[in-house]
């Protein structure tokens, strides 16, 4: 599918969720490199680190201590350096208002954390696929909105 691996970053304070996430990608057999951070501050540090290769897709949990998802989103979107990153909100909340708010703030994808491992795998695969299609088909990333 892709020459290079897809770089994926997850920011989530919950250990279990991080575990699910990485396990899912492991089982998916897509060429991905996944790394996780524990909170918003860590995320920003990671992104701002000049050595860091910026991820293709960033999965962002909303409820994080120190710097929550919304704040991170705002920060990332305000920085030109990060404009190529596809941001996927990865959250427990499914309120329409929250979804819309995050989209308005610049998120591309909104995922409600599934309570089923298979669903998680499917969703992640779908996202990767669609993202790759956007990438290869010259589709407008700015209007890339997906809610799962």
């Amino acid at each position: 599918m892709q020459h290079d691996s897809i770089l994926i970053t997850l920011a989530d304070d919950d250990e279990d969720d991080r575990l699910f996430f990485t396990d899912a990608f492991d089982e998916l057999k897509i060429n991905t490199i996944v790394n996780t951070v524990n909170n918003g501050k860590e995320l920003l540090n990671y992104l701002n680190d000049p050595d860091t290769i910026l991820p293709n897709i960033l999965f962002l949990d909303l409820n994080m201590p120190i710097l929550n998802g919304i704040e991170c989103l705002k920060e990332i979107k305000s920085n030109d350096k990060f404009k190529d990153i596809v941001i996927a909100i990865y959250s427990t909340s499914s309120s329409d208002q929250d979804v819309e708010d995050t989209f308005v703030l610049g998120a591309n994808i909104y995922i409600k954390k599934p309570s089923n491992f298979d669903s998680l795998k499917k969703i992640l695969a779908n996202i990767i696929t669609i993202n790759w299609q956007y990438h290869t088909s010259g589709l407008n990333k700015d209007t890339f909105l997906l809610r799962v």
Partner: protein
Amino acid sequence: MRIFIKFDFNNTCKKILEEKLEECQIKHRILGFGEVEFLEKVPTEKLNLFSKSLERYGIEIVENQKTILIQKIKDAITDMVFNEDASINVKSSVYLSEKLNHSYGYLSNIFSEVTYTSIENFIILQKIEYTKQLIINNQLSLTEIAFKLNYSSVAHLSSQFKNTTGITPSAFQRIINKRREITTKNKN
């Protein structure tokens, strides 16, 4: 002040190619969208240089035959969906097979093999993409867009939109508008 921009990819890419080809001093002939004939043998490094210069524009030199075909299929589909003059009444399968001179089944297989998704899905994707563009342009109503894209009803368009993106067209519009408001606020 706000202006609306329509992208003519063909033209844009062509211009970039020409510019870069001139820059790299490669004698060439542009054959069509996605095809350039080099009129002389080009050394690898020059090719790499050329390739690199196109990178920032998101233009890649396609190497694989299959990839080429896939690209052609994609382009044909993009053409079919985005082009207003194209005969919309023609079934997409017929259109594609005629345009690319292969059977639809063959095309379909190749497409799915490489892209892991079907032509139909891709068509839908493009349609939704176009819909998004039209929504952003704000000049046509949903009903008009549905008609333009040959949907049987607005509901049909809405449901396909929702199925593809997970949000309704009106929600999409709302979000885009709010985004605009924020950017203008930030500018001021």
